[in-house]
């Protein structure tokens, strides 16, 4: 009887979660469109056609005359393109780190700053700015260096505190340790900042986040971190799916939960620390992008991670465009744009997070 009942079902058997090719194409197209807009729109109005020809001209074996002056070419190659590429890298990293954190901590509100990366980076940057060690521009400037260091110190501290807690629920101890470490670093950061009121504006801009570039330095600085960390997180995507059933069951299914959590948190935190060091504390990307993808495309990390990389990059390039254009020629810090879109979205996520 059982067999006969199932006969007619066989045709409809479901395949496992799979990333559909056209989703990837859609995401890649979105990213390309965002890059195109980012290259053509700005205070110096350059034609879409000219910019396109200019880009094509630089490809090997292709020769076009874009008709752009040398100054205009420099705007494309030394100002806009590095900024757009940095936006792609930062957006991908923050969104993917957020998605991974949400999986590792089984918490829909986890974001890349959960374990104190932001507070640590903010502290490091403030120290650099207040002590007048650097202005935040350039590859080996003190601001990104100290921000990166501060972020890593904060995350390591969180991990040490979380593990020494020896509670039965390591996820909760880690999150709580993150809260403690973040408030501690924020407290010192605020203290240092208050003692030196002249630099408050500069610190404030770091905290709100900005895609500021000086040529290709920032891109060169962060791309190895972003590339490496995204690669590791992509490798872990199915293991992140297994974590959805909790530490204990994931363990009984054959996963080394501690190792998977350690590696994914390290990769997500290291990548986040690197991008935060050059772009400041851009908020909400790590929550908006993965949740939107989850709601639209599916629950599995095999779908979420590849798509967050592409959509995350596209989203931040778009947000940066808004930040550049709304009050042209002045700029709104990009963190304001992402938070302005992020806060209402947050409400939506809260209302629908039963799905998670």
């Amino acid at each position, binding site marked *: 009887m059982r067999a006969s009942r199932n006969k007619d*079902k066989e045709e409809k058997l479901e*395949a496992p979660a799979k990333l559909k090719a056209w989703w990837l194409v859609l995401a890649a197209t979105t990213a390309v469109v965002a890059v195109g807009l980012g290259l053509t729109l700005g205070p110096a109005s350059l034609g879409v056609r000219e910019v396109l020809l200019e880009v094509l001209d630089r490809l090997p074996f292709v020769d076009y005359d874009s008709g752009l002056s040398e100054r205009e070419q420099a705007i494309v190659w030394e100002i806009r393109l590095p900024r757009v590429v940095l936006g792609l890298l930062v957006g991908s990293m923050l969104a993917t780190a957020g998605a991974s954190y949400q999986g590792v901590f089984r918490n829909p509100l986890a974001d890349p700053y959960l374990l104190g990366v932001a507070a640590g980076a903010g502290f490091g940057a403030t120290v650099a700015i207040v002590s007048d060690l650097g202005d935040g521009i350039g590859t080996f400037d003190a601001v990104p260096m100290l921000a990166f260091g501060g972020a890593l110190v904060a995350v390591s501290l969180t991990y040490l505190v979380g593990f020494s807690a020896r509670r039965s629920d390591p996820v909760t101890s880690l999150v709580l340790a993150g809260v403690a470490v973040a408030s501690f670093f924020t407290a010192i950061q605020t203290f240092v900042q208050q003692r030196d009121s002249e630099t408050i504006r500069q610190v404030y801009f770091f905290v709100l986040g900005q895609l500021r570039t000086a040529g290709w330095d920032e891109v060169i600085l962060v791309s190895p971190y972003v590339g490496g960390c995204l690669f590791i997180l992509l490798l872990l995507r*199915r293991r992140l799916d297994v974590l959805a*059933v909790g530490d204990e069951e994931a363990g009984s299914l054959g996963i080394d939960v501690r190792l998977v959590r350690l590696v994914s948190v390290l990769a997500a935190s290291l990548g986040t620390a690197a991008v935060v060091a050059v772009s400041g504390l851009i908020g909400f990307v790590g929550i908006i992008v993965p949740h939107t993808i989850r709601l639209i495309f599916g629950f599995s990390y095999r779908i979420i991670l590849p798509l967050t990389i592409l959509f995350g990059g596209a989203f931040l390039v778009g947000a940066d465009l808004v930040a550049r254009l709304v009050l042209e020629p002045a700029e709104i810090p990009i963190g304001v744009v992402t938070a302005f879109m992020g806060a209402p979205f947050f409400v939506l996520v809260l209302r629908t997070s039963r799905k998670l």
Partner: protein
Amino acid sequence: MEAISCRSLRVNFGSTEVLRGIDLEVPKGGWTTVVGPNGSGKTTLLRSIAGIQASQGVIQIDGHSLGAFNRREVAKQIAIVPQQPVIPDGMRIIDYVLLGRTSHLGFFGIEKKSDIEIAQSALEELDVNFSESRTMGTLSGGERQRVVVARALTQGSPILLLDEPTTSLDIGHQQEMLEVVDELRSRLSLTVLATMHDLTLAGQYAESLILIEQGQVVASGSAQEVLTEDLITRHYRASIRVIEDDSGPIVTPVRRKNSNSLE
């Protein structure tokens, strides 16, 4: 050969002794059910054997010490159906069941066609309507239970640990579930170790019963030996009657009016 054997197994939660020297043998291909009142340590015993609860003493799986296996090797030997599984509501049923294949996948974690077929046939065995892209959150309590068992079957391990597998099922589905498990056990030569509250059903499906109380084995043997009015009254502090039936002892509660009632 014993599939599972435990010698003086102990587990402490802080200063509380939950298991106090359990000795246990589960023959290969057999069905053993652990019974005992709430808090007697049944679940802790299963979790220790599955290697997800730290314990002292000896646990041997197929003659090898449990401690010598890594997580993946344990998963290939033992599949567990937890009493309260974590259900990721947004996950599709097929994806959930496929999690059972985790210990068989390579580094990149890509399921082969054979893995998908194993998962699909496990779902069919348990008669779950999974044809549409249903997610875990849409399942009823009974369906959910069967999907969790399907995941355990998909694991393909020779030992199946079932912690209260019939809790949220009605009486018909309870029987159906236990029949399916028993049929699979004989067809695939699985060894089953279960915990159960329903003593009658426990006796009808298990080849041997182990009664534990306060972390110690107080009786073991066949259903006729363990399910006696004397033992159950004493260890469960229950008022019951045991009726002999062809299918085994039937344990049924009886209400005794005490002298203080308003008669």
